[in-house]
């Protein structure tokens, strides 16, 4: 939506296309906040923000991209506020900011624990104000490539059925993450990596796909997100013995160490038998009822509804869960991909500002700053070109393909493949990774992809057939899984979210301070490397 608003304001003719209504987007589930060096709670500046982000990325983030993010962040947050975002306030009426993991200053601007919700709605308000048309519940299934340019999208109309083609001079992918690759995930059902696979299928490269962030506090048993804001407000993490175990892993930053560090610590405690039924405990009790109700109301509600635990009186059972894909479609500093006319921003893109580990509060900021930049760049490109060609064969081919799927009567339905993919990814490509497990996972994914070629959908109808779109989503996910495994095996070191304690426990800047690049060639992922762009920060040892 941020990209659409910018493109509209630059003067382009814009439409949004989304498989769910725009306000249902999963950015709305982001709770804790958005990072910008406003300096409302302490002396802060963009350079400090940039350093924290570079260090947090385990030196895999591209430093030019990070500097742009941190420099433009304050202005972009003010703009959101002027558009009407309901931020929490300081005593003197400024935007309130709270401490967040691995940040040197209290930099995370927030709206209680519903920051993402507030921002998604304020963006949609701006979309309504501009009367930007939205194709709601249109499922983007293929990109149209013609004359070496991306020239539109082929979509399945969920409400009415049927394959529809929309020609466009430029397409911006903003489809979010792919957390549904895993059993335990904070991600919505909609997070199936669609945009990444759409780009991949046109030969556009994906970057750093092995970097899947595991969030340290996902609620047991369902995996919904418990915000880092809890720890920002002072919550403790305890093991089964009631010990604040982070004293042994991150003695300085403790609960506010970076996410990869805490997730590994938790997983170690759980694996070594110091957990509580496969969880650790997030203790908010000492914060007091008033603070919990005022600033962490949503967290309390989630714990009460989904775990039957009221955090005012009991600690919350939490564990690491798949949360955020640092990797994604490779783009330049304006969101442009390798293919003319195709842009990407937000979680589905990899600029890269998060490198091997994202800091809490930087994801919302990236969607805004790089959404804006890609919107501006795409609009400029579109205004400079006049023709759009949608070859009839593209639509005919898509129709034939969907017909084949719908007409198939004998075979397996997709859900078993989906569940097997998600549980094996969790098992073999989770917080800790072993060479043999990753290789096995490669074979499993290969076999699942074979099975997926012959799946059958139950619903043969046209109206609101999401049985068919869910089958197509599974295809997206399986290709991404193959890319992740390929990149994970190749990176023979431990960096950020990619932890190989059994064979390569250290970071190896000599050989691996570089991005993995994956392209799709002849039905399988092909690996390459790209250098990290550095500006002023030399790699240092990373401790918290």
């Amino acid at each position, binding site marked *: 939506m941020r990209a659409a608003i910018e493109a509209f304001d630059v003067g382009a003719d814009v439409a949004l296309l989304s498989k*769910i209504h725009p306000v249902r987007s999963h950015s709305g589930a982001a709770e804790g906040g958005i990072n910008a060096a406003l300096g409302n709670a302490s002396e802060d500046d963009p350079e400090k923000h940039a350093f924290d982000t570079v260090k947090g990325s385990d030196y895999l983030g591209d430093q030019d991209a990070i500097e742009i993010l941190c420099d433009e962040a304050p202005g972009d947050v003010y703009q959101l*506020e002027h558009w009407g975002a*309901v931020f929490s306030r300081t005593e003197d009426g400024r*935007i309130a900011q709270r401490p967040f993991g691995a940040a040197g200053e209290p930099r995370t601007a927030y709206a209680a624990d*519903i920051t993402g919700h*507030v921002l998604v709605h304020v963006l949609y308000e*701006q979309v309504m104000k501009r009367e930007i048309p939205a194709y709601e519940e249109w499922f983007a299934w293929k990109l149209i490539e013609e004359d070496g340019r991306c020239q539109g999208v082929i979509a399945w109309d969920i409400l009415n059925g049927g394959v529809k083609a929309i020609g466009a001079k430029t397409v911006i992918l903003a489809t979010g993450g792919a957390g549904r690759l895993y059993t335990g995930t904070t991600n*919505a059902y909609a997070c199936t990596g669609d945009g990444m696979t759409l780009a991949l299928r046109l030969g556009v490269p994906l970057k750093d796909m092995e970097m899947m962030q595991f969030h340290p506090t996902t609620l047991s048993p369902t995996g919904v997100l418990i915000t880092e804001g809890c720890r920002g407000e002072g919550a403790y993490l305890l093991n089964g013995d009631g010990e604040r175990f982070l004293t042994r892993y991150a003695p300085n930053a403790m609960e506010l160490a970076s996410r990869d560090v805490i997730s590994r610590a938790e997983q170690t405690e759980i694996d070594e038998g110091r957990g509580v039924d496969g969880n650790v405990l997030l203790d908010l009790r000492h914060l007091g009822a008033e603070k919990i109700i005022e600033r962490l109301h949503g967290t309390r509600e989630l714990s009460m509804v989904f775990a039957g635990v009221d955090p005012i009186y009991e600690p919350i059972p939490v564990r690491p869960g798949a949360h955020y894909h640092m990797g994604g479609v490779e783009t330049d500093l304006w969101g442009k991909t390798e293919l003319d006319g195709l842009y990407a921003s937000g979680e589905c893109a990899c600029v890269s500002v998060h490198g091997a580990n994202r800091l809490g509060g930087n994801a919302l900021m990236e969607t805004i700053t790089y959404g804006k930049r890609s919107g501006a760049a795409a609009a400029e490109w579109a205004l400079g070109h006049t023709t759009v060609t949608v070859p009839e064969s593209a639509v005919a081919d898509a129709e034939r393909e969907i017909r084949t799927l719908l007409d198939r009567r004998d075979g397996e339905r997709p859900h078993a493949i989906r569940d097997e993919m998600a549980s094996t990814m969790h098992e073999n490509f989770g917080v800790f990774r072993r060479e043999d497990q990753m290789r096995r996972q490669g074979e499993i994914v290969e076999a699942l992809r074979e099975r997926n070629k012959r799946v059958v959908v139950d619903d043969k109808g046209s*109206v609101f*057939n999401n049985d068919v779109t869910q089958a197509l989503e599974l295809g997206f996910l399986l290709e991404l899984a193959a890319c992740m495994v390929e990149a994970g095996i190749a990176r023979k070191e431990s960096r950020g979210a990619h932890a190989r304690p059994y064979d390569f426990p250290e970071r190896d800047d000599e050989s691996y301070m570089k991005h993995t690049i994956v392209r799709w060639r002849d039905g399988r992922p092909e690996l390459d490397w790209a250098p990290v762009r550095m500006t002023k920060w030399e790699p240092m040892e990373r401790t918290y």
Partner: protein
Amino acid sequence: MDVALKIWRSNPETGERELKRYEVEAPEWACLLDVLDIIKDQVDGTLAYRKSCRMMICGSCGMRMDGRAILACKERMAPIVERGHVPVIAPMGNLPVIKDLAVDMSPFWSKIRAVKPWVDTGYAEYPEREFVVGQEEMDPIHKEALCIMCGCCVSECNSMESDPEFLGPAALAKGFRTVGDPRDGATIERLQMLNSEHGIWDCTRCYFCNERCPKGVDPRDAIAKLGAESVKEGIDGDMGAKHAKWFIRSAETTGWLRETELVPKTQGVVSALKETKFALSLLRRGKVPIPVPPHVADKVHEARLLREVVHAQGRLGAAGHVQGEKALAKLDHHLADDDGEEAQ
């Protein structure tokens, strides 16, 4: 656990509509949405419903359970199963059904758009930094800002059932979201629009929207706050506004509702005269007291005190500004209910 439920299935392509019973095995922690997923996976892939976040924030999975609007991801099944109850699942009300549990939300969104739901600062140039606004000035719109646009309130709205043109609780709550925002500069225009036909005074105050909102937004309270703001700004031409004004005046002067005066004050003298015959017959049958001299309640000061209390609450309203606290209170209540039934 073994879960049984009945779902209203409807297929627009065949025109069939039927209440079908399903029985599946589900984990103890399952919510209604998880059970629907199991049915779609294992029993019937054609079952249509919306879902996304499964954490009560995206607003996709509004539907009805036993006749009341809910979010499917929020309703835990275990207490229902323990009771041996077989709930009936149906699509939301007041919106056209597309298929099974999926409704057409376009009438919902057109009403949201009708209230121009964006903050309009009226500034050509924005200040370099943020607007400086105290938390206490922002507090009155916190509950309205919580709205996830799921449509549960609209589903339950009694006024909308008889007047589909009524703006409805979600759009009006959104209306207060901007009217109550100290940064907004279009208050008067907004209030005038919200006071027109199908606006705030068409609400019948049944409180179903407050009762069923899964997020504690309390749309009816927002409508009341819009009424108060309108009267305060002198936008009180609607009969509803006049009625409300006289109601308060009557209660604080005598502690009683003086019906004989209420009608002319609300409808105007001419219109009230037409009701004379009806009024006289009410009087004859002792349904209304003789209007003169006005009867003053013994403890009229209590009525006045009540007025003062409400006045002092201002925009925050009785529930206070803590976001969604009432929704949680309801949750507690809900659990207590289940326990109560178990004890029996």
